[in-house]
C-alpha cells in the first residue's frame, strides 16, 4: 500500500495559514461529489457513532451547516459560506465551529487528479469575524516586515 494515500501532509506557510494535503484513491469527479453533495457528505462527515444534520446550498454565496450529534448526546455545529466554486477543481469556503464563534477559517480547496488518484490541497487562513468583516484597522502601511524572519518559526517551536 502506498503510504501517501494514508497520510495528511501539513505545512505552515505563514503564521495564520495551514496547508493540508491528502491523497485519495479515487478520481477527481468522485472526490468532489463526495465532498460537496449532501447525500455523500452525511455519510462521512460526522463522527462514526453519531448522526449528522446536513444543510448544503452548493453555489457561490450559498451557506452550509452541519450539526453533529454524538452518541453521548452532545451537539457540535459547524457552518460556513461558499465563496467560489469551480466544479471538480477549486472551492473557497468559510468554516466556523459554533463552539468557538468568531474564529473564521477561510478554506481554499484544490483538487488535482494524477493516475486515477486525487490530491486535495486545502489552504486554511485563520481569521476573526472582525477581520473578515474588515473591522480591524490595520493601522498603517506595512511591508517592512518582510525583512524579518516570519513568525511561523516562532510558532513552530511552540507546537
Amino acid at each position: 500500500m502506498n503510504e501517501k494515500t494514508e497520510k495528511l501532509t501539513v505545512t505552515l506557510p505563514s503564521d495564520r495559514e495551514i496547508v493540508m494535503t491528502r491523497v485519495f484513491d479515487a478520481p477527481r469527479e468522485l472526490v468532489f461529489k463526495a465532498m460537496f453533495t449532501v447525500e455523500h457528505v452525511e455519510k462521512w462527515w460526522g463522527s462514526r457513532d453519531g448522526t449528522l444534520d446536513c444543510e448544503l446550498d452548493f453555489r457561490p454565496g450559498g451557506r452550509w451547516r452541519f450539526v453533529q450529534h454524538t452518541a453521548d448526546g452532545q451537539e457540535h455545529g459547524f457552518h460556513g459560506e461558499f465563496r467560489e466554486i469551480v466544479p471538480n477543481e477549486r472551492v473557497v469556503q468559510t468554516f466556523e465551529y459554533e463552539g468557538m464563534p468568531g474564529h473564521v477559517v477561510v478554506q481554499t480547496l484544490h483538487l488535482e487528479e494524477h493516475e486515477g488518484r486525487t490530491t486535495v490541497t486545502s489552504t486554511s487562513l485563520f481569521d476573526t469575524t472582525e477581520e473578515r468583516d474588515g473591522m480591524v484597522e490595520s493601522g498603517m502601511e506595512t511591508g517592512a516586515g518582510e525583512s524579518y524572519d516570519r513568525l511561523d518559526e516562532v510558532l513552530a517551536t511552540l507546537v
Partner: protein
Amino acid sequence: MDQLSNVFAALADPTRRAILARLAHGEATVNELAEPFPISLQAVSKHLKVLERAGLITRGRAAQWRPCHLEAGPLRDVAEWMRLYRRFWDERYQRLDDYLRDLPAEGTAKEKQDERED
C-alpha cells in the same frame, strides 16, 4: 472580542509579526524595534499597544526604556487551536478515504458507461 480573536487580529499585521519575531530573540526597546521600519516611533508604539492588549507582549516599568518582552502563552493558544483544527481534518479525511473505498463500484461503473455512450 475574546482573547484568541485579539491574538489573531494582532497577528494579522506583518509589522506586528516582525516585531514579535524580533522579540523572540530577546527584549528590545521601542527605539530598537522601530529601527528597521520606515515608520514613525508613534506608529510602532501603536502596534505595541495592539500586541500588549492581545497579551502577546509585556512592557517593563523602567520609565525611559520600557523594554518589550514576548509572552509565549497566547501564541500557544493559537498553536493549540491550529493543532485541533488539523486533527479535525485528519479525522474527517480519514473518514472520507474509508467512504470512497467502500463506495459501491456502481458510481464509477455508471460513469464509465456514460463515457461509452458519449
